[in-house]
C-alpha cells in the first residue's frame, strides 16, 4: 500500500534527514558564534571608548548590548529546541500539552529570554543617547511605536493562525483528562 518500503525511497529519506540534522546543527552553531563575536566586539569597543573618554553612561550602553548578545548566545545554546520541537515519542497527553504550549500567545519560557534580549538592546540604545534629550526622546518613541506595532501584528497572526490549534489541543486535552 505505502511505497516507502522501496529501498531507494528509504535511502533518500535517510539522506534527507541526515542532511537536515547537519544543517540544523550548523545553523545553530553559526548563530552561537555570531552572538559570541558581537558580545566580545561590543565589550572591546566599549572598554576602549571608556578608556578614551571616561563616559560611564556610554560604557554601560555597550555593556547592555553585550548582555543582550550573551543572553542570545545562551538562548541558542540551551533553549533552541523549545522553538519548534515537539517530542512525538511522549505519551499523547503530554505531547498535546507540549504542543499546546507552542501555540500560546507567548509560546515558551524562551519568550522571557527573547524579551530580555530586546530590553537590553533598548537599554543600550537609551544609554548611548543619554544627554541628548532629542535623541533620547526619538529613541523612546521609536521603541514604543515598534513595540505596539509588533504586538498588534503578533496578536493578529496568533488569533488567525495559532489560536484555533491552541483551542483544539485544549479540547483534546480536556477530553483525555476527563473521567468520562
Amino acid at each position: 500500500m505505502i511505497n516507502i518500503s522501496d529501498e531507494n525511497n528509504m535511502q533518500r529519506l535517510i539522506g534527507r534527514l541526515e542532511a537536515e540534522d547537519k544543517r540544523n546543527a550548523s545553523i545553530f552553531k553559526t548563530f552561537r558564534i555570531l552572538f559570541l563575536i558581537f558580545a566580545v566586539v561590543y565589550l572591546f569597543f566599549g572598554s576602549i571608548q571608556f578608556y578614551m573618554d571616561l563616559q560611564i553612561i556610554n560604557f554601560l550602553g555597550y555593556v547592555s548590548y553585550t548582555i543582550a548578545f550573551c543572553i542570545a548566545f545562551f538562548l541558542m545554546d540551551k533553549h533552541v529546541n523549545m522553538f519548534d520541537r515537539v517530542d512525538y515519542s511522549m505519551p499523547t497527553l503530554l505531547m498535546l500539552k507540549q504542543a499546546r504550549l507552542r501555540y500560546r500567545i507567548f509560546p515558551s519560557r524562551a519568550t522571557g529570554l527573547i524579551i530580555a534580549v530586546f530590553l537590553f538592546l533598548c537599554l543600550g540604545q537609551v544609554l548611548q543617547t543619554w544627554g541628548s534629550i532629542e535623541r533620547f526622546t526619538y529613541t523612546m518613541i521609536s521603541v514604543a511605536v515598534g513595540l505596539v506595532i509588533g504586538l498588534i501584528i503578533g496578536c493578529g497572526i496568533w488569533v488567525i493562525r495559532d489560536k484555533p490549534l491552541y483551542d483544539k489541543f485544549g479540547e483534546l486535552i480536556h477530553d483525555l483528562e476527563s473521567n468520562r
Partner: protein
Amino acid sequence: MQTKEERFNAIIADNRERINGICRYYTSNCEDQKDIFQEVLVNIWKSLDSFRGDSAISTWIYRIAVNTSLSFKGKSAKNLTITINSDSQILNQVFYEDEAKEKQIQEHHIEMLQSELNTLSVIDKLLISLMLEGLSMKEIADIVGITEPNVKVKIHRIKQELKSKLTGGCHD
C-alpha cells in the same frame, strides 16, 4: 555498534505494519496515508537518539505514530477526523470480544457500527483505534498517558454509547 541508520532501518522493518495500521485509521485518503507514514518516519528518526528503552519499542512506535497522526490532522483543525475502516472480525471486538465465533453480525449492522464509530470524538476514536489494533488496556494507557482504570472507563463508556445508538437504547 549499530549506526543510527542501521537502528532506524531495523526498527522500521520490524514495525512497518504497526505504523501502516495507525495511518489507515487516521485517513482513508491514500496520499494522506503516505504523507503521515513519511512524517512518522521523520519523527522516529528525530526521537531515536532519545529512546532509552524505558518503554517497549512497540509502545514507543505507537506513541510516535498516534501523536504524529493527531498533529498531522490537527494542522487543519477544522478537519480533525479519524476514519475507522476495519473488517467485520476486528470490529466484532468492540462488542463481542468473548463470543466472537457465536456472533454473526449482519452486513448492515457492521456498516452502521462503522458509521457510528466515525461520529465519535477524536479522543474516543483514538482509543477505539488502539483497541482495534489488539492492544491491552495497559498498553493503551502507556501510549496515551492516562491511567489504566481511566482507559477502561472510557472504553466501557464508548461501548455503551455505541450499543445504545445501534439498538436504539434497548440494551442491557
